């Protein structure tokens, strides 16, 4: 609207030809300076933009957040069922471990491998090399005498003796026995003897 005034005022200038250069420069372009309140009242595109992007951003974030949350819920649920399955596997394996490491099973397996006990141990004292006890060869007597007199109903299905023997056989065929890598622990009491050098 302010520009209308300028338009009217510009019109006479076109009809007067000559005096143009006599006259000082034609009244410059004038417009009404808007008051401060007018300026303030003018709608600003920036504000609209900020609000709209803000709203959009919130909506998008909200959306992403809830996608993330439900995604998380599914992940939690799948991990929980995975954990349940792993717990079950763990239970199966530890049950089997406890069962196989029961003395009944160990003794039977050891004897089926031809192992015998020697009830007369002999000790070598490291500090002075003394032999304590009298060395006797193992009599070759069986502890169990082939009889399992201490029942364990968990072992009753013949899976154990058979399966372990078969398992041991199969493992033996596949790979060299790992025994040499495992050094048996020798319990030692007292200070370790050290060589005396002078």
């Amino acid at each position, binding site marked *: 609207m302010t520009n209308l005034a300028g338009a009217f005022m510009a019109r006479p200038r076109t009809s007067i030809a000559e005096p143009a250069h006599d006259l000082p420069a034609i009244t410059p372009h004038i417009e009404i300076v808007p008051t401060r309140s007018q300026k303030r009242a003018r709608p600003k595109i920036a504000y609209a933009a900020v609000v709209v992007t803000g709203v959009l951003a919130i909506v998008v974030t909200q959306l992403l957040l809830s996608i993330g949350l439900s995604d998380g819920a599914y992940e939690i649920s799948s991990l929980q069922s995975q954990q349940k399955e792993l717990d079950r596997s763990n239970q199966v394996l530890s049950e089997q471990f*406890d069962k196989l490491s029961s003395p009944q099973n160990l003794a039977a397996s050891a004897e089926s491998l031809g192992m015998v006990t020697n009830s007369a141990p002999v000790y070598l004292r490291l500090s002075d090399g003394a032999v304590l006890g009298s060395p006797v060869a193992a009599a070759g007597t069986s502890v169990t005498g082939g009889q399992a007199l*201490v029942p364990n109903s968990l072992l009753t299905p013949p899976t154990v003796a058979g399966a372990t023997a078969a398992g041991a056989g199969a493992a033996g065929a596949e790979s060299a026995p790992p025994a040499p890598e495992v050094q048996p622990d020798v319990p030692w009491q007292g200070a370790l003897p050290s060589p005396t050098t002078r």
Partner: protein
Amino acid sequence: MNATASRSTRRRATVAVFAVVAVVAVFVVRLVTIQVVQADTLNAASFDKLSAETTTYGLRGDIVDNDGTVLATTVLRYDVTASPKSVTDFDRTDDEGATTTVTPTQAAGEIAAITGQTADQVYGILTADPSSNFAYVVRGIDVDAFRSIRDLGIPWLYYSSNPVRTYPNGAVAGSVVGFMGEDEAGEATGSAGVEQIENQCLTGTDGVQTYERGADGVAIPGSTVTTTEAEPGGTAMLTIDSDLQWFSQQALAARVQETGAAWGTVVVQEVKTGKLLAVADYPSVDPNNLDATPTEDRGSIAFQAPFEPGSTFKALTAASVLDAGLANVGTQVEAPYIFTDPNGASTRDSEFHVDPLRLTFAGVIQESSNTGTAMLGELLSPQQRFDYMTKFHIGSSSEVGFPGESGGILHPVDEWDDQTNLTTTFGQGLATTAVQMASVYQALGNGGVRLPVQLVSGCKQADGTVTQVPDTTGEQVVSPQAATDTINMLETVATGGYASADLQIPGYRVAAKTGTAQMSDGSGAYGDSYITSLAGLAPADDPQYVVSVTIAKPVTIENGLAAAPVFQKIMSQVLKEHRVLPSGVPGPDLPTTY
């Protein structure tokens, strides 16, 4: 025209505003109705549809031996249930994408192949009551079977898990570990052995978890409400060594069967701590399979059955007399075949001899002379002997507090008749349990200090703290000198007694005492069967372990020789397992005759 336009605009605006207000009002009313007025009803209804409540099990704790070997533990077993109402054909898609239709008969066959039932049985369960919504197809199957059935993908099967007790070592310490039963409320509870003693320690607290879930069963984010946290039970730690326990049970069972005996017990105790390393009973129970054992054989004989100990009790009499300073190892006695008290009571030696035996105190023990022991024992007044027995805890049950534990039978001294007065010197006329006898020898081996008998070394809570640690304060029962002298006298039994050949452990000095006690026939008189026993310590120069073997009613051998080989085997095993160094000094070799 302008005025009309503006008026119509205003009217339209008013109408619009009213419309909006009306719509909003309707919404508000509805909102209030739903959110406030009907809130509780709707919430409840939705909760029923959405919420899932799961029990989180606070599993019963383990029972472990002295090195952590699991003797009892809790595992989950699965129940498979079906909804017969919805048992129909279903489609199964295999890995290649081919779809086959499975009929209930086929499905029943597949289930039966896994559970070991017959297809007809399973089909019968599924069709027994077609209107029902619930039927157990199979109960208590293990994880492998559960997985196989689940993988069949049968839509009308449902699964639930239950905690179940299992004993990986079977009958090893079965009678001590005990088993589960039901209390008055039908809840599973320990009903024998350590399961019962430590029930409070072992019991866990179940938790309840409530959450809301969507149609696919996935929890709605943020809805998990843990109502009660589950607390697992504590771990009961025993002093038992499961390997030694097995060895003892095996050796005992072999000997009991060999001698045709009725029952037997072995108790192995650590001298310096009072800990029970093995408590073997025969017959014994496999807690996994209670039905295989008659009810009366499911307990622990060693704790619960008192018997007249016989000659192994002479060690207590000897220690009492030595402690009172009324005799020493060399005190000389002329032991007749029949000894008659001035009051008329009399006793005789187990083997006939014409001339009195000229024995030292050590010789009386070695020969196991009843008359000699009676003469020496009577140096003490009955009250004094009663007091010594009480100090050795005869007549009161051990600190273990085993369910149904017996304290033996020791009548008050004023109820002793003349015969009882005499026979109590050599272990008749009173009764002890196998555990009490082991404890007597423990005190003698430990310089006269009796330590509390320990079976449970504590209860380890889930957070690692150990509670219920037993008291280990000892009590000086007899002087160290009296204890050592008694051990030296007991050593003569292993070096020269009738069972000496069976008691040799190469490299080690053994102190032991045989016993052959007449058994009460249950009606106040002695029957014709015997309890044979052997209790002893090794190495005699510094006793570390007590082994006490009792075999009742052996048929083929009727004296301490029935029990001696078991003692020798088990003592050798204990010494080997614990790396006890061979005896360095020779025994005192006390003179037994003069």
